[in-house]
């Protein structure tokens, strides 16, 4: 997506940006500088060597930039012309404006001072790149919840959470030990050891309704308990976008059959129910049967009236 420059242009841009960075970070180590610019140390040394040959017309030691890096630490002098950071590009501005908007949704309304600064910065950036103010990013995660998660992960503490399980359609209170945040599909999950279930679980962060940091025992059994998974075969009767997205299938045609693996029989039951006449579960037979029974029960109720 981001316009890729040819290698020499990419390098020219990096050299131009190196000057203000070194000017404001005099004495930075070569290793750290390479890391900031995402190149290896060999490349960084070669960049600095090239830069060392540049300067104002005349190109005597008086006009050339004065770069020092033999010691492994980098300093620059006589580089005033390039010492201010370059203007931001359109894409860079867009990235910052959207990032600020997301940040706004994570800041408590009580901090009006910060919110005001975010708005001003956003306007100034949009002005610099001529962007109409029509970009927005919101976060669906409750800020108290995300604050508690960050705190627990940092201090290796436990959490008490109330969690809405979509498959069971239940709100439960659980005592968990969070391990890490992982991203699957479009959602963020908190990978945890759940003391309530005595097993590892992944909690979708936007379904955690409250979270409080608490001390929990940190002993986690070495090997997770094996969960039994079910293999289901689903036949497509009417291909729809909803089905494709729900079952994460890309090629759907009438009579296509696909398999899916799930740990939750409730998930497969509910997914088939919600798909209505568009799909048919071929196996396993016991889930087929319970779907038929459930649908009949509901049907009877509608037909009473």
């Amino acid at each position, binding site marked *: *997506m981001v316009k890729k420059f040819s290698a020499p242009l990419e390098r020219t841009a990096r050299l131009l940006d190196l000057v203000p960075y070194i000017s404001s970070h005099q004495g930075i180590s070569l290793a750290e500088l390479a890391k900031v610019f995402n190149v290896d140390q060999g490349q960084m040394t070669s960049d600095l060597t090239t830069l060392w040959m540049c300067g104002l017309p005349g190109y005597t030691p008086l006009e050339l930039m004065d770069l020092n890096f033999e010691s492994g630490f980098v300093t620059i002098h006589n580089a005033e012309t390039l010492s*201010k950071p370059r203007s931001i590009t359109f894409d860079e501005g867009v*990235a910052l404006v959207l*990032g600020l908007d997301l940040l706004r949704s994570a800041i408590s309304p009580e901090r009006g001072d910060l919110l005001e600064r975010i708005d001003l910065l956003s306007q100034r950036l949009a002005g610099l790149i001529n962007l109409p103010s*029509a970009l927005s990013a919101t976060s669906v995660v409750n800020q108290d919840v995300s604050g508690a998660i960050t705190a627990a992960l940092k201090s290796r503490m436990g959490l008490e959470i109330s969690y809405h399980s979509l498959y069971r359609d*239940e709100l439960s209170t659980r005592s968990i030990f969070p391990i890490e945040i992982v991203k699957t599909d*479009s959602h963020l999950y908190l990978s945890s050891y759940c003391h309530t279930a005595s097993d590892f679980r992944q909690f979708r962060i936007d379904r955690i309704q409250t979270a409080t940091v608490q001390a929990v025992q940190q002993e986690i059994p070495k090997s997770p308990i094996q969960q039994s998974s079910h293999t289901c075969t689903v036949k497509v009767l009417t291909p729809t976008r909803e089905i494709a997205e729900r079952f994460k299938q890309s090629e759907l045609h009438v009579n296509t059959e696909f398999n899916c693996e799930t740990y939750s029989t409730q998930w497969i039951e509910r997914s088939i129910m919600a798909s*209505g006449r568009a799909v048919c579960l071929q196996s396993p037979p016991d889930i087929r049967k319970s779907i038929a029974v*459930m649908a009949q029960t509901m049907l009877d109720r509608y037909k009473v009236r």
Partner: protein
Amino acid sequence: MSRKIERLINLTIALLATKRYLTKTEIFNSVDGYEGTTETKERMFERDKDDLRSLGIEIEVGSFDPLFNDEAGYKIKQEKYQFELGDISSTEVSLLSLAAEAWQEASFGDVAQRALVKLRSIGIPSDELSIPASVHKLNDGGQDLSLITKAIAHNQLLAFNYLDSHLGIKMRSVVPIALSTRNGFWYLSGVDQEIQEIRTFRVDRISGAIGASAGPKDFQTPAGFDPSTAFSESSTHDFALIDVRVGKASSLRALAISTQSLGEWDQVKIPILNLDSLCSLVLWHGPDAFVQEPAELRDLLVEHLDALVKNHG
């Protein structure tokens, strides 16, 4: 290769440092790296100008002496070259740094990283710990976000194939006016040229490449469009009355505009935005949800339930 890079940097420095416009002859005589015949130098210079422009560096062309129509001269204006954010505090640098970090591993990850380097080069230390917010990460919107934002800025026309709810693919022509993200998805709102109305599209449902071209000349961005309301059209007058078992069906309750207690059940009133998706959500909740009204929704449910019984019996 590094000769060319040196030349580009020397040219930038010379054009930035000069107070007056430099003529081509002056550039060739003073800037290191221009060699060969006049023709070769001219070609080199033309290419160098294009290269710098593509890096976002604008070269101004002006006349050395406005009274005489003589050779054109060149320079780069400091104020255009520099990142001019005005006076900026350490708190503001921290806010911007957090904003850039939201893109980790997502669409604008690389550019955000570059912006961050420029911010840090301003030389004002940031203290991100002073900001009482944890950064959420933005979702990857694929390769198209930059194209879409450029089209918004320039009122361009976007043409793309869009997957409709029956997996049909239809070509849409849209002048985009907003880009937003919600629930982990990216959405593009714009004026659909076929119907001249604002429509919102989920970016990951666009199939294949997006084409961008010049938009209609008389295009005017509809006033007062708020992207955050694109998802909650409250203008509907159709409502469903649904009984939900106490303690169950949170996803239906979340949509309710009012709830009435009926003992073991609650009755929720839900605006109908899309009959099919509401029907599907009711089915998801099985016997914990029962539709009272409207008849249209009941009929649709009965149709699906009939099929479910038949297909699984």
